[in-house]
């Protein structure tokens, strides 16, 4: 009966499932983008080739805006087993993007070098190297000028995966933004991986209060759980999703109950208890929520494709571990939505319902 009821109004069933699907997609896309961007950030951190990184005291995991004296770099290099260091300055530009100032020679040595898809290294003072994702996203070509408060000329487009999306020369960036002698992160290469703990220990002794992480530790810390603001934002979106699910199912079930008033009367005349009638609506709701979840999961693949085309810098990953949660959230919202119409149906007077036309 449950399936027949849903089949009886195919358009309403389809629209309800799609609306629940949108709710599921909202959640999966948000979580997928959050995780995707953080994973991308972690991957780019690994792309530096560094084993350890040193950051200013009090700096957060995500923000790179804190600065420290550049003269710390030789101190770090002097630590036993440190093979190489390179300092970078992260300068926020525009709304949420940033340019990373690097010493190209040092950075190439540590990371293995950029792979240029177009152009080459810096030629002039206000030259910029961008990665392919940024170039595709901003429709930037070699020789173009990028206005980030200051007009930069694109000298090279490189394969992505190394530290940042926009690179400038460290000295130039320091001078332009009044940060002479300041850097945001010092990347450290250790002679052998086995010595990483020893180097970290030595650095902690020498640079009290500074944040010193192995790259593995740093990348493991880049997660949604460690960013309270993002966690709260996800919670807000989930709450909105529950409300959307509730409203969709409420309206769908409410109209279904009104439309089926006579049928409910018939069931009551046959001896159906309120629980039996409520059970039919609950099972219909569960089916709708399951169908909606499936639709939502499929749509999250669609949003990923859409992101790749429309916002290449926003990496969305598919998050199968969140599918059960999204299904549960859809189910809870839907069941709350079905509750009032269901109780209304269950309490309907049989004689009035049978007289309903």
């Amino acid at each position: 009966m449950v399936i027949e009821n849903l089949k009886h109004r195919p358009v309403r069933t389809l629209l309800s499932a799609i609306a629940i699907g949108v709710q599921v997609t909202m959640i999966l896309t948000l979580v997928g983008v959050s995780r995707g961007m953080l994973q991308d950030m972690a991957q780019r951190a690994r792309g530096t080739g560094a084993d350890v990184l040193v950051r200013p005291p009090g700096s957060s995991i995500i923000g790179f805006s804190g600065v420290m004296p550049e003269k710390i770099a030789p101190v770090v290099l002097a630590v036993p087993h440190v093979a190489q260091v390179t300092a970078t300055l992260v300068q926020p530009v525009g709304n949420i993007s940033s340019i990373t100032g690097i010493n190209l020679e040092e950075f190439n040595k540590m990371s293995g070098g950029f792979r240029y898809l177009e152009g080459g290294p810096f030629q002039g003072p206000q030259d910029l190297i961008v990665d392919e994702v940024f170039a595709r996203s901003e429709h930037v070509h070699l020789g173009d000028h990028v206005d980030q408060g200051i007009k930069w000329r694109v000298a090279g487009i490189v394969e992505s995966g190394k530290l940042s999306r926009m690179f400038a020369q460290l000295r130039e960036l320091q001078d332009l933004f009044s940060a002479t002698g300041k850097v945001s992160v010092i990347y450290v290469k250790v002679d052998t991986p086995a010595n990483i703990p020893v180097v970290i220990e030595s650095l902690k002794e020498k640079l009290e209060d500074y944040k010193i992480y192995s790259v593995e530790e740093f990348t493991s810390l880049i997660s949604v759980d460690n960013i309270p603001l993002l966690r709260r934002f996800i919670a807000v979106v989930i709450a909105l999703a529950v409300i959307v699910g509730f409203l969709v199912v409420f309206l769908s079930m409410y109209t279904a109950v009104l439309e089926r008033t006579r049928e409910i009367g018939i069931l009551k005349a046959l001896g159906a208890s309120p629980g039996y009638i409520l059970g039919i609506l609950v099972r219909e709701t569960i089916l709708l929520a399951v169908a909606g979840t499936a639709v939502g999961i499929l749509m999250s693949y669609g949003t990923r494709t859409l992101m790749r085309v429309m916002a290449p810098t926003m990496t969305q990953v598919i998050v199968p571990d969140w599918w059960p949660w999204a299904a549960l959230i859809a189910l809870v919202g839907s069941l709350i939505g079905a509750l009032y119409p269901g109780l209304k149906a269950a309490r309907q007077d049989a004689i009035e319902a049978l007289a309903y036309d």
Partner: protein
Amino acid sequence: MIEVRDLKKTYHVGEVDVHALRGVNLSVERSEFVAVIGPSGSGKSTLFHILGGLTPPTSGTVYIDGQDLLGMTDGQRTELRKKSVGFVFQKYNLLPTLSAADNIAIARDIAGRPRESDQAFDQILKLLGLEGRLHHKPRALSGGEQQRVAIARAIVNHPAILLADEPTGNLDTENSQAVLGVLRDLNTRMGQTILMITHNPEAAAYGHRIVKMLDGRIVD
């Protein structure tokens, strides 16, 4: 089988009391086929609803198959409808989304019995002439066929009484005779107790006896 004494039913409509039944006395024996006739507003439908456990009586005694309906809770009246009473309505009242077979099966399901038909019931379906029509939805059935499906659904759980409210009210003469013939067959061959409300004197003549109602009382 049915024992009604001084049955009264008063509806409160706004601030007005409407006395639908004003002291009905009625006895129906097991396997009896009784036709109830009377003009609109005479209380036939109210009597039908009380006997079927759809609404509680205001006062008096009503016994169906040994169960006293006065003071029954909603849950007890639901049990009564599930197990002891079968309804046939003028408008057939089949569930439009289900096939004829499923319309019958859902009554079994509600009663907590297996949905599959038993051999004895297959014989009844044969008697009702529904073989070959069971997998059609109501919209694909004629009025007569729909009413026969409704009868099958009403008796699938072997109720003590079958209450039929104007069962031929929406049917042409030929289908009316077929449905009335089925009711009479159920009564004579299977001993089904039937209480039928009708406006039609020819339909009423199918019963063993006719009870006439007027102004909330049985007058004849």
